[in-house]
């Protein structure tokens, strides 16, 4: 895969995200009823072009290791309990990020009987990432802004 390494040098040059910021954040994603668009773009945030790991941010497998709960989709009635379980498992201090317009509460589609509402109807939301879906660069920039917040802020 030497071709990949060579191409990455030019790819990363064009991204223009801030660098040199100290800190780290462990992210846990929970899909609460998205169209999978936010997941597709979030996957690319860990991909070679944006590569959020180089800023100290990474996806972790368990909410017990997570600083930030990244929630996508309008929360369906069937995902409400799982979302709360994941949140309760997180150590403090913890943050909740609503990823994408559905999670933020914009233009939600579906039957009222099947949907609880935006993430803020279930959990306190610290960060709202707009977009349908937001691009990998927009997701990365929004998450990096969390590094500037003090844990108690």
């Amino acid at each position, binding site marked *: *895969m030497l071709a990949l390494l060579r191409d990455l040098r030019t790819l990363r040059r064009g991204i223009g995200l801030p660098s040199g910021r100290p800190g780290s954040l462990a992210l846990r994603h929970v899909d609460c009823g998205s169209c999978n668009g936010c997941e597709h773009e979030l996957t690319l945030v860990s991909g070679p072009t944006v590569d959020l790991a180089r800023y100290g941010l990474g996806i972790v*497998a368990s909410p017990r290791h997570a600083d930030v709960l990244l929630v996508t989709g309008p929360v369906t009635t069937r995902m409400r309990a799982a979302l709360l379980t994941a949140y309760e498992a997180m150590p403090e201090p913890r943050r909740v990020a609503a990823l994408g317009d559905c999670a933020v509460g914009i233009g939600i589609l579906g039957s009222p009987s*099947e949907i609880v509402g935006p993430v803020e109807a279930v959990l306190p939301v610290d960060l709202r990432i707009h977009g349908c879906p937001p691009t990998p660069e927009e997701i990365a920039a929004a998450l990096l802004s969390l590094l500037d917040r003090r844990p108690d802020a």
Partner: protein
Amino acid sequence: MSGVLPGGSAYRATIEAALAEGWRFAGLHATAAEGAPAVRALLASPDGSLRLEPVDASSGVVPTIVDLAPAAGWDEREAHDLYGVRFDGHEPLRPLVDHGAGLARFTTHVRGADTYQVAVGPIHAGVIESGHFRFHVVGDLILHVDARLFHKHRGLERAAEGLTLPDGLAVVARSCAGCSVTNAVAYAQACEDALGLDPTPEVARARTILLELERVWNTLNDIGAVCAGVGLAAGTNRFAELVDRTRALNARLTGHRFLFDSVKVGGSGLELDGDAVADARGALARIRAESSRAWRELLFNGSLMDRMPDIGVVDAAAVATLGVVGPAARAAGVPEDVRATSPGLAYDGFQPAFLRRPAGDVQARLEQRALELLPCLDILDGLLQRPVRPAATAAGGPRTAIGASRVESPRGATTCVVERDGDRVDRIRLRTGSYANWPAVAHAAATNLLPDFPLINKSFELCYACADR
């Protein structure tokens, strides 16, 4: 009204005769239309024609057809859970969409020495959609998998009821980012079927461009997903970068990386001038060259190649029984591709490609995708030789109350049935390629090892979003 619908025995006889003539099951749904509750089975012939066979459901009970067409299993369970229809002879009629029923009613009973269950989800360890899997295992050996999906059920079909036909499109198109164009085209064609409208060659060309652009990024994504399934980060990242570039091209052409809102009912709004089509051809040529190079590197990667043969087999017989569609069916040597019989789209002369070794295993499903990428890019190159202008459909056949269509998604045949009341949606049924193939994932996993399940699952790379709706 209910008197005009066939009764149970006539319905079963019709389905049985049609299947014997070569028609295949393509979907089944219930409607609660006032005064005439019905169940309708959708059948497809090898030449691409569709027919709906209704049965009177006013008594709340209709005969099952799951013994004639096992592919109807999920459809009947869904119709029971959402519309309360009982299917006589479908035993046990386990819940599918209904999460109110306890796990005991949902789970298959597996008995024997040392058998136990491994429960996974609905939240998974990676960036993955939500769904619950219950593995029945002995040690590492999988005996059976119960996939309990529909955690993402948003009631989208119900939400569309009462909307105007053009407004219903948004609900269908947003049901799934991965198949947004396919679902939107299937819906638009079903509406046009009911409204007596025919796509003109220009509408067909625009829609085919969008469908194949969607197929390009999905195919690249699905190849990368198999790399992720074995932990081959170099392959995952190489294809992720190609996916990113394809979505960037989508955004330049239509204003959206997933091509959202690029399909219309009754025409096409896609507008690509000479510079745009030239940009697209150039970008796709570079994606072709680099994906071919990346694919060759995968072929020589022993740690990937050694993991795949004979894993997660779905052979031609299972394809026929389970009603498997798309690349998963073709990887078993079954000529199942709606593009070969799509007069409303610009696939003139299309023939699906086959592997020399259509073994129906993980390796074949991966190789099938790589094999299909190049014809897909060829189609796009041919269609993008001249600018694309907005166009309208033309008056065609008679107007009917119900329209149906079938479109080849990146995961196989997606069917859409639209029942209308004037210019409003009475009922939508969207049955995507993912919905058709989920039972095959469970079939493929049985007799394999638990650690191979992620790889088997990735080799199908099905959506939860459009299956759950």
